């Protein structure tokens, strides 16, 4: 039962903020990008950016596990 690091949790919070809580800021049609309404475009961007956030969180957790001498 090892708690995840604060930094990893913070990184995971970013997609939640961008794709969920902030909906009233980006739920609009204009400006359109690549022919898509803004809300759809925004979500597609954040699908990709979420994997970037989690990739960084992954590195942090792996580094932490090594420092702990292999973990739990």
């Amino acid at each position, binding site marked *: 039962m090892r708690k995840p690091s604060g930094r990893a*949790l913070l990184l995971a919070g970013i*997609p939640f903020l961008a794709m969920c809580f902030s909906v009233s800021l980006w739920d609009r049609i204009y400006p359109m990008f690549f022919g898509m309404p803004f809300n759809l475009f925004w979500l597609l961007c*954040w699908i990709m950016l979420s994997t970037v956030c*989690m990739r960084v969180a992954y590195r942090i957790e792996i580094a932490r596990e090594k420092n702990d001498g292999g973990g739990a």
Partner: protein
Amino acid sequence: MSPSGVSMTTIVAIVAVGATIGILAGARRKMDLEQWTVGGRGFGAVLMYLLMAGEVYTTFAFLGASGWAYSRGGPTLYIMAYLTLAYVMSFFILPEIWETGRRHGMQTQSDFFSHRYGNKYLAGLVCIVGIASFIPYLQLQLTGLGIIVSVASFDGIGRTPAMVISMALLAAFVFASGVRAVAWVSVLKDILMVFAAVAIGVGIPYMYFGGIGPMFAALARAHPAHLTMPGATPNLGHTWYISTVLLTSLGFYMWPHTFGSAFTAKSADTLRRNAVVMPIYTLTLAFILFAGFTAVMVVPGLSNGDLALLIIVRKSFPPWFLGVVGGAGALTAMVPASIFILTAATLFAKNLYRPVFAPSMTDDQVAKLARVMVVVIGAVSLCLAIYTSTTLVSLLLVGYAGVTQFFPGVILGLYWRRVTASAVLAGLIAGVATSVFLMLSHRDPFFGWSAGFVALCLNFIITILLSLRTRDSPPLEERLRG
């Protein structure tokens, strides 16, 4: 050959190849309980990815997402958000579950509750709620399969025969090869599905409007309100969006089968890596939405929005392609249905039947009973799918509201030593009762909030408050040592 003959032949060929792959997947391995339910805990990154993608892209993604884009508009975007956020959550949940599972030899979600809380009533309730939530989900897959095959074959294959035949095939491959069959059939399913989704999502807007951009521009001119929330609905606004995205993304890995899939991984690291790359697969859903939005203007006025995607494909593409969509669609129903049946059968045999009726059963006997249950559960759900009917998404949300109530028990059980069995039990009962009451009395959304989310908040409050006031006996530390 007639158009109907061409598409029927294609569908039958694809489904036959899929079933053969499934039956052969477990050949040359001895299928004991461990091998059958969790693949001997040996799935590497690729098989794991395929199993999880196979579980996610169900007929709901295929028909439900496009159906919502067609009939409700903007609110359908919640699907892309919740899937991505569910993977983000899985980064913190699945590796821990895997660790605990490996240490104590767990195979099911109910095993987890039974070990963590040492309370047989809680483990039993989790098992029953899990199986009960599966029933609408399973029925939804079968109903969806019937629709896909009958529309794609120009009504050459009726809904009922399609459901009966595919249920027989999937029961056969689950019976023979267990979870390995599910992962390997997913390979074929995913290849066909991605091909079909891209072809449909790019092709259909191009045929009618000359591209995706002009299609959206035309839709924004004709129905400006359709593309944002609440779209064509009276009450699916931003509050609903936030609460539903939270409910479904937290609930996603609380389904007994998604939870259980964590046990199949070779290592905790496999699961973490998976959580990082899985969201990318969600991008393919955008293509399905493009088709749904195009259908708003090309085939307006359908009474059942779930049919929008298939109707527009049938109108626009040659019969062989319709057959590919039909075949991929059938597998899209069969893969998730097979993992549901596998999980429900194991839960029944291992966590309900053995503890209550036959504590002396060996694992081999449990495995035998589970395999018999595959056939029984298959037959029951088939009857339900044939004799009752409802639209797809509403059924799914009832199941979600049910399983999400496991969330406090799982997350607090993993990360908070203080949480007690009686508190989780009380919270779970309150949560399930509240969501069932609100949904059955048509109070969903409840003042703009998703009913399951309201119930989850209540559940969390009860679990935390009661945990602070009660103690487990014997305490967790003693049980873990003993």
